[in-house]
């Protein structure tokens, strides 16, 4: 880690690399985040509606339930687990392949701090982009509920719209943004660590990717538990 956060050789090159990583790891994940979130929001709306068969409970709670579940847990933690698979495996396999094909040795021979050059931009990119993906996920999740809920008759459109605006607590968003920064750091750093320590060939790169994803998922859940206890 000390090597990763040491002073870059050329700041402009690192900045360019960070923007490339934001595009590769972040912007190229927008599609999958949108698709998953729309379905997640739609399914959540149906399940909340299904469990609210008491006539004393107003149907506006369906929108509220969907919104708060997305903000507090689904768009941060579930998205974190999914991104650990997508972004994490990508990082491990990319760095691992560079290791086994001597590209990392090649950087070292040039006098480049390979750990810093390859890992730091990825960590910065994921930490910066993950909170934005979270906000997009909440938006698409609420949109999913808006489409599915009224379409199947689980909730009327005005009730859903009223529900998603009712009793909004901005701190929930702050809490989840903090989680996203932590999850982003975990995803990029654990995946990079496993990639950078690969020895062998293609088989070992595959094994390292799997181990990186499993370890990241476990650490995301553990840190979720700790952060929830500390911050809520």
């Amino acid at each position, binding site marked *: 880690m000390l090597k990763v956060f040491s002073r870059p050789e*050329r700041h402009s090159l690192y900045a360019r690399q960070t923007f490339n990583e934001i595009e590769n790891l972040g912007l190229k994940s927008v599609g999958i985040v949108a698709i998953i979130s729309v379905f997640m929001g739609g399914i959540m709306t149906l399940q909340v509606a299904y469990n609210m068969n008491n006539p004393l409970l107003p149907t506006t709670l369906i929108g509220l339930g969907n919104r708060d579940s997305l903000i507090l847990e689904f768009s941060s933690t579930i998205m974190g687990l999914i991104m650990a698979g997508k972004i994490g495996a990508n990082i491990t396999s990319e760095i691992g392949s560079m290791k086994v094909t001597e590209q990392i040795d090649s950087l*070292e021979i040039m006098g*480049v*701090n390979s750990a810093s050059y390859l890992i730091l931009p990825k960590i910065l990119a994921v930490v910066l982009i993950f909170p934005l993906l979270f906000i997009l996920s909440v938006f698409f999740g609420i949109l999913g509920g808006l489409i599915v809920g009224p379409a199947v008759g689980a909730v009327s459109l005005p009730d859903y719209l009223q529900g998603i605006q009712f009793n909004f607590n901005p701190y929930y968003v702050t809490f989840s943004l903090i989680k996203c920064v932590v999850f982003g750091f975990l995803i990029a750093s654990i995946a990079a660590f496993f990639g950078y320590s690969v020895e062998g060939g293609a088989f070992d790169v595959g094994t390292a990717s799997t181990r990186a994803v499993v370890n990241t998922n476990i650490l995301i859940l553990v840190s979720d538990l700790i952060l929830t206890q500390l911050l809520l």
Partner: protein
Amino acid sequence: MIKISNIYKSFDHKEVLKNISKEFKKGETNLIIGRSGSGKTVLLKSIVGLLEIDCGSIFYDDRDFTSMNLKLRKKLRQEMGMVFQGGALFDSLSVEANVRFPLDMFSMLSNAEKQKQVDYCLDRVNISDSNKMFPSEISGGMQKRVAIARAIVLNPKYLFCDEPNSGLDPETAILIDELVHQITVDLKITTIINTHDMNSVMEIGDNILFISDGEMCWEGNRKEILSTDNQKLQEFVFANKQYQKLRDDKMNE
């Protein structure tokens, strides 16, 4: 000039290099030869510092590499160029960007000057129309040539090549050998090449070190190699019938 003295290296208590000493001369093509698994690559990687030696010393001219801290080593490495066995070009960068990378990282040249230097190096290795292609789109021989261009773009004082012509057809292998030899002579740099290719040895071997089972067995030049009485070297060199014939012809003369 690179001077190594009494180098030992082991992995998991198994000695891979045992007491190797040698002076690699400037302006000459220095070869490390030996069978596969004899310790050539470990020796080369130890010399450049990719592997830490157990004991011994490595001097780059008058600078003691083994006692240098990381910062000094990084500075010295900017004077090195290395061609890896598989080329080790960056997959995500085009041919031109690969060659330009060390300049972007370390030089203070303007963009136009960098471009001029990149064009010169690519021209030097006879690559001119594949600048925008990616490593996966060019042949193995071209990848090696691009790797050589990248290795020389910062005008290094020391050039290292790990089996530069492995996996190449004989014609391309000779071209690569000649290219490295020419660059060594023209730029007056210290070049060390790892190889087990006898054609390379006979073509460009100015100063040869033969290692077997991690031990230094013989040193000399390409003229002396044919008349050697070293048993292990004879087995290595004359495994090829062509060289047996060459030796017999020489003896008959």
